[in-house]
């Protein structure tokens, strides 16, 4: 039931970073599993940062988390049936997104009901996943990797699937990006201008499902936020401009993923811990930076009533 002790337990020798950076990088790239992990991590980081940016903007973090969690029984069930976990992740996440979209279609549901539905779906999904993994032979290392992530077992085929899906999703988001941005920022004006807000939100949920299921294969179901929310939230702390924000989110996501992969290679702790910690550190830094910037630029604060009235008085 142990989380696969990453690094030490799997390598016959304990790898340690030397002082020669180039040699270290070359060493990392000598192992097929490490190359797969880095390729998959890169794809997932870019995809998650872009989709996550829209998700944070649309305040759908909780929905994103729910969709990722729904992937867990999918993956565990696929393992019971002898299929690959990847298939289960995508099938269940997409089905879950459709259910959430359908429930939302009843326009009278408010945020309260919606979040209660999402929470219940989440708990039910985890319960089913728990049952499936107990059928599969106890809460084995495999099930724990589904929850908390692992980068050791990523196959070349998986990297290919991730890459193809990422290209499709990114192409689609590039196509609907502008209206989606409009619909996310001001839905009522967008409706008035004839933007198909409803169709866009369903389309976005489906894209989110693919991104969450992709991220879950590396971060684990429970830790998708490390790549889906945190880089995007960090970028939005630093800039409100869409293109710059998206670029920044991708850069942060890549930095977080690469740092975590290298750390997990050398230190025998789970990758989920490194991913979330690096991401959180980036968020904290951005938070402090945005605070400092606001303080050092007093011109941007709202003028006091005295200042406003100054020219009138004199």
């Amino acid at each position: 039931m142990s989380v696969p002790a990453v690094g030490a337990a799997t390598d016959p020798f304990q790898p340690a970073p030397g002082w020669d950076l180039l040699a270290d990088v070359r060493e990392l790239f000598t192992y097929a599993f490490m190359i797969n992990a880095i390729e998959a991590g890169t794809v997932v980081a870019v995809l998650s940062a872009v989709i996550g940016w829209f998700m944070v903007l649309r305040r759908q973090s909780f929905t994103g988390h729910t969709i990722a969690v729904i992937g867990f029984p999918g993956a565990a069930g696929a393992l019971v049936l002898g299929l690959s976990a990847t298939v289960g992740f995508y099938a269940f996440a997409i089905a879950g997104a459709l259910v959430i979209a359908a429930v939302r279609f009843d326009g009278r549901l408010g945020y309260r009901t919606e979040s209660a539905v999402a929470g219940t779906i989440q708990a039910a999904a985890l319960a089913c996943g728990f049952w499936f993994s107990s059928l599969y032979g106890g809460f084995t290392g495999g099930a724990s990797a589904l929850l908390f992530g692992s980068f050791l077992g990523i196959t070349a085929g998986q990297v290919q699937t991730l890459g193809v899906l990422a290209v499709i999703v990114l192409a689609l988001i590039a196509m609907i990006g502008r209206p989606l941005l409009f619909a996310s920022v001001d839905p009522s004006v967008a409706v008035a201008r004839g933007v198909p807000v409803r169709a866009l939100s369903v389309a976005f949920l489906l894209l989110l499902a693919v991104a969450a299921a992709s991220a879950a294969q590396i971060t684990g179901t429970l830790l998708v936020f490390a790549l889906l929310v945190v880089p995007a939230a960090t970028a939005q702390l630093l800039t409100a401009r869409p293109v710059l924000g998206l670029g920044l989110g991708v850069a942060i996501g890549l930095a977080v993923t690469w740092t975590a992969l290298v750390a997990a290679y050398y230190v025998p702790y789970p990758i989920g811990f490194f991913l979330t910690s690096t991401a959180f550190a980036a968020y904290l830094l951005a938070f402090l930076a945005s605070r400092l910037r606001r303080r050092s630029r007093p011109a941007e604060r709202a003028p006091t009533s005295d200042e406003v009235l100054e020219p009138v008085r004199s």
Partner: protein
Amino acid sequence: MASSLDGSLLGMLDHPFMERAFLAGIAVALLCGVVGYLVVLRAQVFAADALSHVAFTGALGALAVGLDPRIGLFVATVGIGLLLAVLGPRGRADDVVIGTVFAWILGLGVLALSVYTASAAAASNGGAGVSILFGSIFGLGEGAARLTAAVAVVLLIIVLALVRPLIFASIDEAVAAARGVPVTALGVVFMALLGATAAEATQAVGALLLLGLLAAPAGAALRWTKDPFAGVALSAALAVGSMVVGLAASYAAPSLPPSFTITVTASGIYALSFVLPRPVRRRVRRRRERRPGIQAATP
């Protein structure tokens, strides 16, 4: 068939482990039903979700440093609950802040799990990670069950004492504040109570499944009655019902873990509330007349 099933179900209370499970389970379910209704009414399901993950990290963190997991549970959930309340506007935490913080906290939990499973203590208590994630209500000891039930009752009394202003503040914060209800202080106290509830529920159904016990009965109650006081009562009753049915089902079919049957029962009841229409409409109006204070507040 039916009689033998009856016989076996009646016989289940002869087992001390079932008795303990019912004692702790019903108390925790009552608490979760009441607190959960307020959580849904206040639209804080996401915060409850975050606290459930905190519970996991707290318990495993305590195990990793060799303490009783319950100490870690309560310290972590109540502490983080207060922190979220203070960080958020008006005692409510922001979505993105919650998401970011709880991703990291869960990451720390994974670290604690790996430290703990690698340590010597884990050899005698190998299932600790699973029982914290998914509960082990059948494994509660005599003292643990009593303590869990007692704490649940105390928390329930506190919540019920505050239930009127809490409902008022949840339905219409601005009006409540204008009427002199200390909205912010209530929000902070409620997050602490929610934290303690999460810690309690973790011992029954586990950190990952407690959201089902909080959100599902409350969501169903919210669909079946608009009267908030009837809603609290109904939510508590549905939570207890899910607990009893879930425990009995797991007893009858041992291959189904109890936390699975409890969660699925609660979710099933919620799903039913989307199919069955709200039965009581006229009572709502009568209640409103009787309670003029709430009239302005019901949506």
